[in-house]
């Protein structure tokens, strides 16, 4: 067991350093400042992914097996790298089926659309939660 700070805590610390200490010190070099903020943002993505990524991918795997094979297989792969590979393979299969016309209309459209909406929201939950917040405000305004 490694001593603290834990890996999420270390990532958080470096992100804070980049965003709150280094970036403001770079006022005279806006290009570098912009890149430092990107680096800080990437670390924020990483820390969210460490916290929430795996359960989300497990759920996505289950949805995909149900959507594509009509049943949930008993167990998703345990090892994270295998789970990633398996989910990628299923997503590849889904892409081929969309290309073949399975999402053109009716129930196929509804089911695939529902899966893709959920999956895209989950990607944004990790990559850019502020985008989702902005969007929900926008939807409210538009009624």
């Amino acid at each position, binding site marked *: 067991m490694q001593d603290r700070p834990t890996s999420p805590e270390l990532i958080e610390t470096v992100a804070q350093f980049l965003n709150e200490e280094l970036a403001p010190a770079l006022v005279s070099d806006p*290009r570098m400042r912009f*890149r430092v903020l*990107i*680096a800080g*943002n*990437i670390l924020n*993505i990483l820390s969210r992914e460490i916290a929430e990524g795996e359960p989300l991918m497990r759920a996505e795997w289950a949805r995909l097996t149900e959507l594509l094979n009509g049943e949930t297989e008993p167990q998703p792969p345990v090892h994270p790298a295998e789970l990633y590979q398996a989910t*990628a393979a299923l*997503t*590849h299969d*889904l*892409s081929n089926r*969309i*290309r073949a*016309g399975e*999402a*053109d209309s009716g129930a196929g*459209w509804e089911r*695939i*659309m529902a899966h*893709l*909406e959920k999956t*895209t*929201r989950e*990607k*944004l939950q*990790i*990559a*850019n939660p502020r*985008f989702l917040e*902005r*969007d929900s405000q*926008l939807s409210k*305004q538009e009624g």
Partner: protein
Amino acid sequence: MSINQKLQEALEISLAQQTRSEVRLSDLVLIAGGSSQETWRLDLWVAEGTWQGNHKLILRRPLGGAIFQQALDLQREFSTITAAVAGGVPSPKPYWLLENLLGYPATLVERLEGESIGRKIAKEPYFAEARRQLPRQMGEAIAAIHQVDLTAHRLAEILPGLVTGQTPAQTRRAQIEAELEYIGEPHPVLELGLRWLHQNEPPPPDQIVLVHGDYRVGNVLVNQRGLVAVIDWEFAHVGDYAEDLTYPLVREWRFGFDHLHFGGIGSPEAFFEAYSQSTGRVVDPARIFYWELMGNVWWAIGMLKQVQRHLRGEQPNLEFASLGRRCAEMEFEILRLLKIADRKESVCKTAQPALS
């Protein structure tokens, strides 16, 4: 010798030949530019002859590697700008095309003062008046671009975009499919978008026009009063007018101000209206919707291509890498547009019996 010094010396020799005069070159500085070209600023003094006097210039050189396969080389870009300026398009005046500057071609164009960073234009109080003017001004400028004579500088021959037997929409869709194949990752949302674009193709446009190909807030120079010039011509091609009319609407190019459908600064109506007034072309809402979806898919592919340049080591770059996790924003918008299309379609279907 540093690259600055080498470039300075090579330029002085080359520009003395171009102007047939003694020249002095100062303040040669590398500035932020496109992702496939190097952009420098410089001041030039010419002692005598046609070009006598001071000139503020921009120098562009290729970096190798481009986001899209269709990107123009500097020579064709220079011809396009030359034809556009001759056609009355507000764009930096072209000066010289140098065939060989330290082993690469290079172009020199007029340096105009203005801001091009989209998020600043969309956000800063300084640009409030510009934001009011821009939709109309950009409508007029794109109208001028679409009226550029395609026989001038052989544009119809040298520019990409048309494949025999295909409409511009079919050509663009085929390009996207090829890029997605190259990227090699599964992106079911983009597949769904492509499928819709395949099944809802518009008829060919009334006319094939010069398309800027990257027309949006961020690729125009802006001052406090609004539009100064249209820049970044490397994706120019020939095709459907609706492509340029919808690219400024793409979600990414609203810079976070999502409720302002035109570039994060206003509504598209003033933009379309100015365009229609200048061209006499009626803007077809169905064609606009189609190309807006296409534009979002196109930029999603653009992001993924940049990621590949990073991942394949062609151009390792932090910003390119970060785009990989931003593609989901485009996918979210594509799904939103597809749901709107689906609602429209079901409304039409249920309305039909009543009509017959």
